[in-house]
């Protein structure tokens, strides 16, 4: 069975710093990987995805993520961070084998960026 781990429940940094949110996964085949962001009281918003090809994927709002098969990671990055990036971020994996659109989510990381 697949799983997604976001080891940091909270990340706090100052505006202008570089941010990196960690995500690791466990899956027997080649994964499809996603990052979503959730602002308070709002729905999950798609940031980016990795399906195949270039291991560095760029998404919306200036974010990018790097797929590293060697250590099963898909960390989200942005530099510089802005106070408006404060939100909860979810990493997710899609089961490529069954082709049913079933996403497995991590617990999420709450990011606080101080002005």
């Amino acid at each position, binding site marked *: 069975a697949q799983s997604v781990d976001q080891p940091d429940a909270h990340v706090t940094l100052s505006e202008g710093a570089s941010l990196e949110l960690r995500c690791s996964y466990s899956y027997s085949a080649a994964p499809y990987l996603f990052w979503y962001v959730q602002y308070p*009281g709002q729905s999950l918003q*798609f940031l980016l995805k990795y399906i195949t090809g270039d291991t560095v994927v760029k998404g919306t709002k200036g974010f990018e993520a790097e797929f590293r098969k060697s250590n099963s990671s898909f960390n989200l990055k942005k530099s510089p961070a802005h106070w408006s990036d404060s939100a909860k971020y979810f990493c997710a994996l*899609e089961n*490529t084998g069954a082709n049913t*659109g*079933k*996403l497995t*989510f991590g*617990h999420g990381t709450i990011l606080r960026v101080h002005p």
Partner: protein
Amino acid sequence: GPKVLQIPSHQIIDMGQMVTLNCDPVSNHLYFYWYKQILGQQMEFLVNFYNGKVMEKSKLFKDQFSVERPDGSYFTLKIQPTALEDSAVYFCASSLEHNSDYTFGSGTRLLVI
């Protein structure tokens, strides 16, 4: 961008009663999903739906749960009867196809008392 609307945003219901959660997906999307998030836990897949049929359901999708989308109207999740452990936030999502961008709603916060 296009949105998924969920109605109602909050619902409080007595244990044993029936509840219907409504989802208005993105208009041209073909695949529909329900996820459940218990407070403090991660979001978990419940079911997906395509062409009028359930394609896959998880072990969380109990016999008391059902989904339908009659005549292109709301995509609904019905729980009958409800139990205390059904209290959670239920998220609806839709997509044009698999492995594409999934659009999520804001969730319905269900409290069973």
